[in-house]
């Protein structure tokens, strides 16, 4: 070892890799023995086809320690200059209650949880989401709200898709008011164009008189701050069978007559200002509420109330059949992820402040806005519109540039609404000093500043009488109880205690990659330089974010083997959609508008066909063999049949069945031969990083899930980030944004797919930290260990369960799998009546979150342990699964009744175990403490018994339960 090497060793720059990866060398040796191979390299050689191995080694910066990475990122953050924002346009500064920031945003009990598919271990966040839904319904006066959307712009686009489906009008036109936020209009255009829906932007009041349409979209209050009377538009739209979509602001609705009261059909918006940082554009929880009659067309997640096995109320995700994994190409939305963590924060903001607190905040904001407007008028400025809640637009004329520059010198951004208008938006953090400062920037002659007190007394409310809210809201006790911080703290804790997240147990969810979300990766997201940036602040103030974007894109390109990356899509589904649009734009630029067929294997996740449908493509399904691999003969036949019209083929690699197909190069070449482009779904990228790059083995486009492979926590069901990565000749077509200034803004590029140019910018530091601390060697080791851990689980469970799909490697116990394995329980169900769901629920009694249930094959469990779990935890899981298999054998042997056994009644609550009338044919100890480790290691008690799905969907109820 050279002196230099020794020094490097002392610096220990690779320490983090050892923290991220759960096993050490000794444990690895033990595991390799169980698998039956001599080294990790031998295992990888057994399961990974040599034909896909990387041609060019991955070249990332050498890793640094946690401390050094934080210092380096701090330098990047410092290049952002965060000015006081008065920009508005859908994003407002706010006070994040510290009790919420510390105990939710910064609490792994909340941010490391998964989407609440397993209702019994998710009652805490399901309750918080029910609060969110109730809050949205109350404030908008609508019948039903979902559990959040990705952003306001995509929510508006989704609303148009719903309207298109349910409207009785035959028109293919949607009218969009020019008072909508520009980013909303941009995303609407991107989403409507492939479906041949015509978007007409203008004054709704005029358009509705003359133009047939199936829906109208209005903003209330408008982007320039005006509170319009929308009633005539509602009446006009309804007369012609069109639906009325309103984008609105929850804080304004505490004072304004809510859209539900004047007949809106769908109401959308952003809840960011309810205690969530602007974060350069996201993540925030947008919302979507509609009439009861449209509830079965509602996109996204919906939480409902059902009952558990003991007849007690229990929460669960409702109406899941609406979702794309079931409807596939018939789905009208491809949304999987919500923004749960942020929806929880926003709902807690309402719990914390209550209706009176929210009204007080809104009144203060409205009053300051009125004083601001009076003062500006008194010094000679014209304000457009006589109404306002928190935003006014000043006719600044030729002084626009000077005033904007003066404000920046004074440390604040105003909005350049147009070349002759300046927008000013106030918020909960504003004070009289802010108003006086704004006046000073508009006082072109020094000293011409109005007096605050005298102006205040002659500043009437700018909310017109007919638009004032007269109805109450948030009357449920949950919004009127937790007023002291002690109560609030305990409420938050009581909810998180009900849930199982990564801070308590491994979450072996196949296809979800529940790996470590390191604390050091999480720290930077609340740094003010990242958290307090407005997404439309001038570009020169966002140099830090741009540098983060540039570095992360170049690293992700290196990881995937592609050339260009866009970080704009704010979920995997949105990355898919953006990727397919990029392919579509390419074909059109080549003059091949007719290429619209998208080949999708039948084993694909339902989001694939849903995204293809949204991108205006025609889905043609390709058969798979019994191992889940694409049937190459069928692919060839379909390529030939659709050769002239082939746009793309979507492949998941390794397949959704968790197997490396060694013919993937051949498959890609086949599609290329027929003029199609290959989309490789990056959902399973955790099996490839460092070993193979989709851009090298034949892919043209991939999306990544940064919330899987690159450590952004799942947040209980969002946020996600779904970058789209493309090969060289597709780079010119990647999505742009309204803030992008290109010589040909309407050139070949795909339009905006997210409200903000960098999508969920605020969580990008997490992935940056991960890659920076791991480096090429660390990331490659992580992939290898992820594969090793999956094969270890497969090897240990193979004697007990049928490992459904494997590569058939003779030298590997369990047959050799990629980074996950599927346990087939269908034969056991035939023999014993025990279903995969029973096993999933029984795992709760053992203290585990179940693996993925019935995806991609019904009646199976898919296990993905990831690289972050220790051997001890892997063994605890395998022991639990083996013990459960033993329990099933007791049913097989007739020792336990087919209907009365711990599996059928799982999970067991403490209350049911303690009940005096224990009537089961198995003991309480068998029920609650089936393995010894539970007696010493602490026991998780589910707050409810098995939740009744059928009852919930037959008796749909999606708000707080009346007390």
């Amino acid at each position, binding site marked *: 070892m050279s002196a230099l090497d020794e020094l490097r060793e002392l610096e220990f720059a690779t320490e983090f890799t050892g923290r991220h990866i759960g096993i050490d060398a000794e444990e690895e040796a033990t595991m390799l023995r169980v698998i039956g191979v001599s080294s990790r390299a031998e295992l990888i050689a057994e399961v990974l086809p040599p034909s896909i191995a990387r041609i060019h080694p991955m070249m990332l910066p050498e890793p640094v320690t946690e401390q050094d990475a934080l210092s380096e990122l701090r330098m990047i953050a410092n290049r952002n200059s965060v000015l006081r924002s008065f920009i508005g346009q859908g994003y407002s500064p706010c006070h994040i209650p510290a009790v919420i920031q510390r105990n939710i945003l910064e609490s792994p009990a909340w941010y490391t949880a998964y989407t609440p598919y397993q209702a019994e271990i998710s009652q805490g966040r399901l309750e918080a989401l029910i609060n969110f839904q109730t809050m949205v319904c109350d404030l908008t006066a609508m019948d039903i709200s979902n559990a959040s959307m990705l952003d306001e712009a995509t929510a508006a686009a989704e609303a148009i898709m719903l309207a298109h489906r349910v409207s009785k009008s035959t028109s293919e036109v949607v009218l969009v008011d020019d008072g909508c936020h520009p980013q909303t209009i941009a995303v609407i255009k991107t989403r409507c164009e492939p479906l041949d829906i015509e978007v007409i932007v203008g004054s709704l009041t005029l358009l509705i008189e003359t133009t047939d349409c199936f829906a109208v979209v209005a903003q209330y209050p408008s982007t320039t701050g005006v509170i319009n009377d929308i009633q005539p538009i509602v009446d006009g739209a309804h007369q012609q069978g069109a639906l009325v979509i309103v984008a609105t602001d929850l804080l304004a609705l505490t004072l304004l007559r809510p859209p539900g009261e004047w007949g809106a059909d769908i109401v959308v918006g952003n809840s960011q200002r309810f205690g969530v940082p602007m974060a350069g554009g996201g993540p925030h929880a947008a919302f979507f509420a509609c009439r009861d009659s449209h509830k*079965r067309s509602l996109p996204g997640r919906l939480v409902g109330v059902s009952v558990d096995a003991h007849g007690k109320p229990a929460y669960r995700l409702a109406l*899941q*059949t609406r979702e794309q994994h079931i409807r596939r190409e018939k789905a009208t939305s491809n949304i999987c992820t919500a923004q749960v963590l942020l929806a929880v924060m926003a709902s807690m903001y309402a719990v914390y402040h209550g209706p009176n607190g929210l009204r007080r905040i809104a009144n203060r904001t409205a009053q300051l806005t009125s004083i601001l407007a009076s003062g500006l008028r008194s010094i000679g400025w014209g304000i457009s519109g006589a109404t306002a809640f928190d935003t006014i637009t000043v006719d600044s004329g030729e002084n626009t540039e000077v005033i904007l520059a003066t404000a920046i010198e004074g440390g604040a951004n105003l909005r350049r609404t147009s070349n002759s208008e300046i927008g000013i938006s106030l918020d909960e953090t504003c004070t009289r000093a802010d108003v006086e400062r704004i006046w000073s920037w508009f006082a072109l002659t020094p000293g011409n500043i109005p007096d605050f007190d005298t102006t205040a007394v002659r500043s009437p409310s700018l909310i017109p009488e007919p638009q004032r809210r007269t109805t109450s809201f948030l009357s449920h006790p949950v919004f009127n109880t937790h007023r002291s911080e002690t109560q609030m703290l305990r409420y938050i804790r009581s909810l998180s205690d009900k849930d199982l997240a990564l801070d308590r147990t491994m979450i072996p969810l196949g296809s979800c990659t529940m790996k470590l979300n390191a604390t050091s990766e999480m720290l930077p997201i609340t740094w003010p330089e990242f958290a307090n940036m407005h997404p439309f602040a001038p570009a020169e103030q966002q140099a830090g974010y741009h540098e983060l974007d540039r570095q992360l894109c170049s690293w992700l390109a290196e990881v995937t083997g592609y050339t260009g990356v866009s970080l704009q899509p704010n979920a995997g589904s949105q990355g898919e959609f953006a990727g397919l649009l990029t392919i579509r734009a390419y074909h059109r630029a080549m003059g091949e508008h007719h290429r619209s067929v998208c080949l999708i294997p039948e084993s694909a996740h339902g989001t694939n066909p849903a995204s293809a449908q949204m991108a205006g493509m025609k889905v043609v399904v390709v058969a798979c063999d019994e191992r889940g691999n694409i049937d190459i003969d069928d692919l060839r036949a379909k390529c030939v049949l659709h050769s002239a019209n082939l746009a793309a083929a979507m492949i998941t690699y390794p397949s959704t069945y968790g197997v490396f197909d060694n013919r993937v190069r051949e498959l890609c070449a086949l599609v290329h031969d027929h003029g199609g482009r290959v989309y490789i779904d990056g959902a399973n990228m955790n099996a490839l990083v460092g070993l193979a790059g989709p851009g090298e083995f034949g892919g043209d486009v991939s999306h990544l899930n940064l919330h899987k492979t690159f450590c952004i926590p799942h947040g209980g069901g969002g946020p996600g980030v779904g970058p789209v990565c493309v090969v060289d000749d597709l780079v010119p077509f990647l999505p742009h944004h309204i803030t992008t200034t290109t010589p040909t803004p309407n050139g070949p590029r795909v339009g905006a797919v997210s409200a903000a140019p960098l999508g969920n910018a605020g969580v990008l530091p997490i992935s940056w930290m991960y890659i920076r601390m791991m480096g090429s060697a660390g990331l490659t080791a992580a992939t290898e260990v992820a594969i090793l851990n999956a094969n270890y689980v497969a090897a240990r469970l193979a004697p007990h369960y049928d490992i459904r799909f494997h590569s058939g490697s003779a030298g590997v116990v369990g047959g050799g799998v990629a980074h996950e394995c599927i346990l087939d329980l269908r034969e056991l169900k035939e023999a014993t009546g025990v279903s995969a769901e029973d096993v999933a629920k029984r795992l709760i009694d053992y203290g585990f979150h179940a693996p993925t249930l019935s995806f991609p094959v019904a009646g199976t469990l898919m296990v993905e342990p990831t690289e972050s779990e220790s051997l001890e935890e892997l063994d605890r899981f395998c022991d639990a699964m083996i013990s459960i298999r033993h329990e099933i054998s007791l049913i097989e042997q007739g020792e336990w009744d087919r209907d009365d056994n711990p599996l059928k009644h799982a999970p067991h609550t403490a209350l049911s175990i303690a009940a005096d009338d224990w009537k089961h044919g198995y003991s309480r100890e068998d029920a609650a403490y089936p393995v010894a480790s539970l007696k010493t290691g602490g026991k998780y008690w589910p707050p409810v018994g098995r939740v009744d799905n*059928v009852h919930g*969907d*037959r008796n749909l109820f999606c708000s707080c339960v009346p007390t």
Partner: protein
Amino acid sequence: MTTYFTPEHEWITIDEAGNATVGITDHAQEALGDVVFVDFPTVGFAIDAGGNAGVVESVKAVSDIYCPVAGTVTEVNDALSTDPTTVNSDPQGAGWFFKLSGVDPSALDGMMDEAAYTTYLTTLP
């Protein structure tokens, strides 16, 4: 009245006047599991053979209902809106979905009768 069956697991009966009743088969309700919701076609609408005639939804699946023959919808089984469990308990009786008028009896030519449908079920994977 003979009951006829489609490969999509729907059944249809028809009287001499050309009035038909349509529902899903016992096999279909078994495959769907607990039905939670049925969406009907609009009364008064004319639907083509093979046209979309609503949706049946269970906790785990959602299936389109196709109109086996051309006709005009005269009645839908509103009782299923309040109690969709009838689809599970009596799919080929009280769990009927909708009625059609103006059906050409020859449209049933070539459709499976009960024996043929039972044989057809054995051919499914």
